[in-house]
């Protein structure tokens, strides 16, 4: 059988990540990873604990992480789960088993999204060119995550550190989004 399994091409290949503005804001691709859309009735928050080592966050717009896994609250019965690349079937199977008693749905979206990191002293300034949320630490603390808009794309935005954010975006919008962020940071060029 023809084998393409080693010929994986991300949409981030060939996009412009470096910029004269890097000292102020860096934009970097996030390596491939497993992603699951996890849905379920109440009870699922704790049911997953044996797999993840933590309960799903039940407070709106918060995240939980442990060594390999992260679970981001994106809706009252919806989490975006990430795990190392190539583990999606294993994790899914483990979750199916752990959640057997609670109505739930697990869907593989590893390739639907791509991840970006945006960091640096002017990261929130650049994000503010397309996102109306308040990035003050009091309003958007480290660890907060949410779906929102960035320019004309929907993204999940996750604050990893004071000046570092993860952006999850649907793959075909990545090209536009990088273009948008590059245009927004142009003025910061040294």
């Amino acid at each position, binding site marked *: 059988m023809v084998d393409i399994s080693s010929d994986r091409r991300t949409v981030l290949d060939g996009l412009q990540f470096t910029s004269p503005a890097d000292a102020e804001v860096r934009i970097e691709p996030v390596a491939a990873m497993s992603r699951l859309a996890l849905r379920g009735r109440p009870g699922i928050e704790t049911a997953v604990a044996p797999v993840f080592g933590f309960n799903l966050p039940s407070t709106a717009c918060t995240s939980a992480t442990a060594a390999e896994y992260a679970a981001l609250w*994106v809706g009252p019965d919806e989490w975006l789960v990430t795990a190392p690349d190539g583990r999606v079937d294993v994790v899914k199977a483990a979750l199916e088993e752990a959640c057997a008693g609670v109505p739930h749905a697990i869907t593989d979206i590893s390739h639907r999204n791509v991840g970006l990191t945006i960091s640096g002293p002017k990261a929130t300034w650049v994000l503010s060119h397309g996102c109306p949320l308040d990035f003050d630490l009091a309003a958007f603390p480290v660890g907060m995550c949410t*779906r929102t808009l960035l320019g004309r794309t929907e993204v999940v935005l996750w604050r990893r550190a004071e000046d570092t954010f993860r952006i999850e975006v649907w793959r075909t919008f990545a090209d536009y989004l990088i273009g948008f962020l590059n245009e927004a940071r142009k003025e910061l060029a040294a």
Partner: protein
Amino acid sequence: MLIINCPYCGARPEVEFRHAGEAHVARPAGTESLTDEEVVDRLYFRSNPKGMTVERWRHVHGCGRFFNAVRDTVSDFFVTTYKTGEPKPDLEALKAGAAK
């Protein structure tokens, strides 16, 4: 751009939301039982009030939830928002409250 209080996520900018029409136009369990008149009424006729309206929104670029809101269509200010399934608030009481 309005600020809308999502019952799940809190106050968020309007562009994350989508308006979804008049609220509490319930779909009966058995639609068979509706008369033609009722069908047409549900489909097309709207109260479209000037003043307090009860409407649905979806936090489409946020948590994805549909929810209900009471809004003043003259000022566009929201009086309250609440989750789908919760009872319709007493508008008269809200009006009295707003007047204060």
